[in-house]
């Protein structure tokens, strides 16, 4: 069967309209690419070119010096080791935090969407409140809670914090997905005698690959890009890369070298960009699968 293109001839039949469509798309693409290109181009300039001002000029003598500096010799405190030392910490924090918060969100979302709790909606509402609290405003009490669990400034602690702050978001996304999954599926599994967790693991999770990818990607970017939580909860041995990035970019009273700043920004963003480029297709498919159908 051929699919009919929705309303194809009615508007975009005329070639002019089709051209207009592409003009708009290219203009938008330029709008989206401009900052990235600007940052990359400036990160390739030597300092003399930076001093000349114009940020939009292309580098005359491109060099990777700024990248090298940002990677391994920019000062981030007493040490001048660039962002390199934080890479492994960032990975070490992000991966388990993403896995746990995604799976926990899936479990919660499933429980809220498919199990007839008396107040499932109310609980969802209460969880969603978490989406609207600026987390900076929660630092203090969170410190108290974590230190009473003796997890403050530990590896386990930072992961727990990311999981908790991620839960409202992941729960919401999964719930909206599972609302659209026929209840018969999990009922059938329960008829077969599978427990809640068993049903979830063997029946529901395999249905959820797309949405899992979406949520995992969103969580990955969120957690990877976090700075403040890492600074406060990770402890000295686990500081993520973004702390070093911020120390390089934001130093209050030191000389500015925008090329190094930009290079550091790009280096830090590379993992998330890679994740997006590699999984973009699943991402779109996953959202299409109903991540956000409300």
């Amino acid at each position, binding site marked *: 069967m051929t699919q009919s293109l929705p*309303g194809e001839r009615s508007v975009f039949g005329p070639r002019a309209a089709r051209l207009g469509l592409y003009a708009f798309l290219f203009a938008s693409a330029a709008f989206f690419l401009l900052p990235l290109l600007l940052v990359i181009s400036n990160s390739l300039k030597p300092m003399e070119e930076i001093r000349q001002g114009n940020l*939009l000029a292309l580098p005359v003598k491109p060099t990777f010096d700024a990248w090298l500096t940002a990677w391994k010799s920019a000062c981030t405190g007493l040490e001048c080791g660039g962002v390199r030392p934080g890479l492994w910490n960032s990975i070490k924090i992000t991966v388990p935090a993403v896995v746990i918060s995604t799976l926990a969100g899936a479990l919660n979302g499933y429980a809220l969407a498919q199990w007839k709790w008396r107040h499932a909606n109310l609980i969802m509402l209460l969880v969603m409140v978490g989406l609207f609290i600026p987390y900076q405003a929660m630092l203090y009490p969170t410190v108290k809670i974590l230190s009473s669990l003796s997890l403050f400034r530990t590896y386990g602690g930072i992961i727990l914090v990311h999981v908790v702050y991620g839960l409202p978001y992941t729960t919401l996304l999964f719930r909206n997905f599972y609302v659209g999954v026929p209840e018969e599926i999990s009922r059938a599994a329960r008829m077969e005698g599978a427990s809640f967790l068993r049903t979830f693991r063997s029946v529901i999770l395999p249905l959820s690959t797309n949405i899992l990818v979406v949520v995992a990607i969103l969580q990955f970017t969120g957690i990877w890009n976090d700075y403040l939580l890492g600074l406060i909860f990770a402890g000295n041995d686990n500081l993520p890369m973004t702390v070093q990035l911020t120390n390089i970019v934001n130093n209050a009273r030191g000389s500015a070298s925008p090329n190094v700043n930009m290079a550091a920004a790009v280096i830090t*963003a590379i993992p998330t960009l890679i994740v997006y480029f590699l999984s973009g297709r699943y991402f779109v498919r996953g959202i299409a699968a109903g991540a956000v159908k409300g």
Partner: protein
Amino acid sequence: MTVVFFFGIVAVFFYGSILWTGYMSLTRSTLMPNYNFVGFDQYIKLFTNHRWLVSCLNMVIFGVLYIVGTLAFGTLLAVFADRRIRAESLFRTIFLYPLAVSLIVTGLSWRWVLDPVNGLQGLVRGMGWENFTFDWLTDPNRAIYTLVIAGIWHSAGLIMVIILAGLRGVDEDLWKAIRMEGIPLWRAYLQVIFPGMRPVVASCVVLLMSDVIRGYDLVIAMTKGGPGIATEMPAKFAVDYYFARVNLGLASAASIAMLVLSLLLLAPYFYSEFRRRT
């Protein structure tokens, strides 16, 4: 059991924090918590504070423009991407990648682009249009719009993908019916397709609203609240008062006020959600 555990964690962290913050907002705590009750003094101070009021107003302006703008732009992109274009996945990737970029880097990049001397304005002037002016970043009346631009840049891709997914989910027969009835495309989208996607749009609005209320990083990186206090936001107000201005009490009051404010804004969504599902 496991579920209860996770909800328990959320409850302890979020509601424990809210309660604690609520308590703090009734004290005169400065840097360290102080448990002496002073009533609603902090709230009175808060709502007579010029900067707080400006912040709230800014949040409303930014929020409305950002949400409407992102929805409109994202939707437009989705509609166009749905027109069976060439290299769809390339375009989609381009539109989506800003989401991978942190708000801090987003803010910095746009700050560089919009810098009146070294950025876009300088470039255009350098090309000969001496009178070209695009100095919104430094104009106190317009700086807030630059935040809107950067915000839209960051989030339009996500909205595009969500709306695109919604569009792909539209029954093909519906499109056929539209063509049979001879309904012009714009009317079809506005009057038939989008109204049918209301839940999707509502989810988008909730996600964007959460960005607005928590919006801190973007402001910090782009305008630092300036020029003057032209682009201050409530979240920044709270954070500034927590630490730099050493006023835990007032900051807590601001946080609670924001929470109440956002719940009020969300009430319609919750209401419809309840009605629909029960």
